[in-house]
């Protein structure tokens, strides 16, 4: 198979979108699992974060792949959006798409853009300080710093608000994207109703879990503040 020829085709691009999506979805699952630990116990969360932050395979193999995956998914998304838009240079005078397709499915580019903006913030919040900490300042690994950093980030209500909105948009992105990735890979058979249910459950549960974690820490902080006042 010639990958470049494959990727130059419309279907090839869609397949690449799906595969990168699946990769990002699996990452999302891992991410939410670790984050959930922060609700259960600071200890466990630190443990897991430390492993993720220091394991060479994760750091030097998985992390670049992840970054590539993110960039690829976004770039390809933009390329496709551009091509798709140019396939209809003259717009309709009147459009009635409500009856034939969902708003979510037609506006993946917008939910995607919000997610991209969020990722920018996320990198700014976590990833850049992390890289700085480890590879620029060359500080010694501290197994116990992760939980405190996390809690600290969720103190700002604005940030929590933006965080929550981003995850609602991620939910929308996933609601169409997850099940749609199966279709792009050619999976549409007797299992499809089940796949759609599973994808729906995942798309709702995972973003909600992220939002829950943020709110949990924020509220905990808020209650502590109130307690301190009293």
């Amino acid at each position, binding site marked *: *198979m*010639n990958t470049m*020829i*494959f990727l*130059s*085709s*419309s*279907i*090839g*691009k*869609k*397949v690449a979108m799906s595969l990168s999506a699946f990769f990002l979805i699996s990452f999302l699952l891992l991410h939410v699992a670790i984050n959930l630990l922060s609700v259960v116990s600071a200890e466990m969360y630190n443990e897991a974060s430390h492993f993720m932050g220091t394991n060479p395979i994760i750091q030097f193999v998985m992390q670049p792949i992840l970054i590539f995956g993110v960039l690829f998914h976004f770039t390809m998304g933009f390329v*496709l959006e551009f*091509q*798709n*838009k*140019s*396939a*209809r*240079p*003259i*717009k*309709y*005078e*009147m*459009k*009635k*798409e409500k*009856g*034939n*397709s*969902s708003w979510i*499915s*037609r506006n*993946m580019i917008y939910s995607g853009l919000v997610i991209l903006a969020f990722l920018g913030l996320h990198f700014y919040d976590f990833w850049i300080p992390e890289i700085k900490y480890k590879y620029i300042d060359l500080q010694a690994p501290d197994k116990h710093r992760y939980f405190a950093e996390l809690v600290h980030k969720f103190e700002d209500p604005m940030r929590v608000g933006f965080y929550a909105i981003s995850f609602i948009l991620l939910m929308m992105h996933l609601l*169409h994207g997850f099940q*749609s990735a199966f*279709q*792009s*890979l*050619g*999976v*549409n*058979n007797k299992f499809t109703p089940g796949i759609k249910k599973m994808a729906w459950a995942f798309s709702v549960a995972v973003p909600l879990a992220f939002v829950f974690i943020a709110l949990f820490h924020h509220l905990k902080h808020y209650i502590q503040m109130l307690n301190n006042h009293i």
Partner: protein
Amino acid sequence: MDLKLKIWRQKNAAAKGKIVDYDISEVSSDMSFLEMLDVLNKELTEKGDEPVSFDHDCREGICGSCSLQINGRPHGPDGGITTCQLHMRKFKNGDSIVIEPFRAKAFPIVKDLIIDRSAFDRVQHAGAFISVNTSGNTQDANATPINKGNADHAFDAASCIGCGACVAACKNASAMLFVAAKVSQYALLPQGQVEREMRVTNMVSQMDEEGFGACTNTGACEAECPKGISITNIARMNREFIGSNLKS
């Protein structure tokens, strides 16, 4: 009933088009949509104006010629039919109706509401056939039994009338449903197996070359298809395409 029509008028492919308003009165609810346009055209001709050009032929929903975007939907507000099967009883007195051609880069306008769908033909030239000569000594039709399920699915895919509503409805002006229907028909039949890989590769490549968009699985094509062709066919084409590329 009396209606206000807003119709796209464009002299030829090179000219600039615009929406022109027309009033039409005493439209009977038993008329078909195209018969309503016939009446408009009769009035225009008698007045010395040029009638509105639109594609139409069989007027019974099978030739696939008619191709109007009516009030924002391919083939209008009713489901499961072509423009020629739409009747005026779906509208009410005083309604305003916007009539446009199907829009896509790959479907340039010929005149007014007529579009050039030869892109579909070229996609079919690229591989929508089984290479068998007419000899009179082909093997007997019953020599290879075909599973009824596959035969029925092949028929469902083959019932595509090539009208282009899928392209018109798709936000990406993608022709995936049309091409997938053709690819599926052959992929499901034993006769289609020999040229299977070449067919899907060539047809998809021609489809892309024509300037159609990619599929983003919104399902609009399936919802607007007058023949109810399912997007499971698109999944099948994706499979065929991936499989064909993996093998090559």
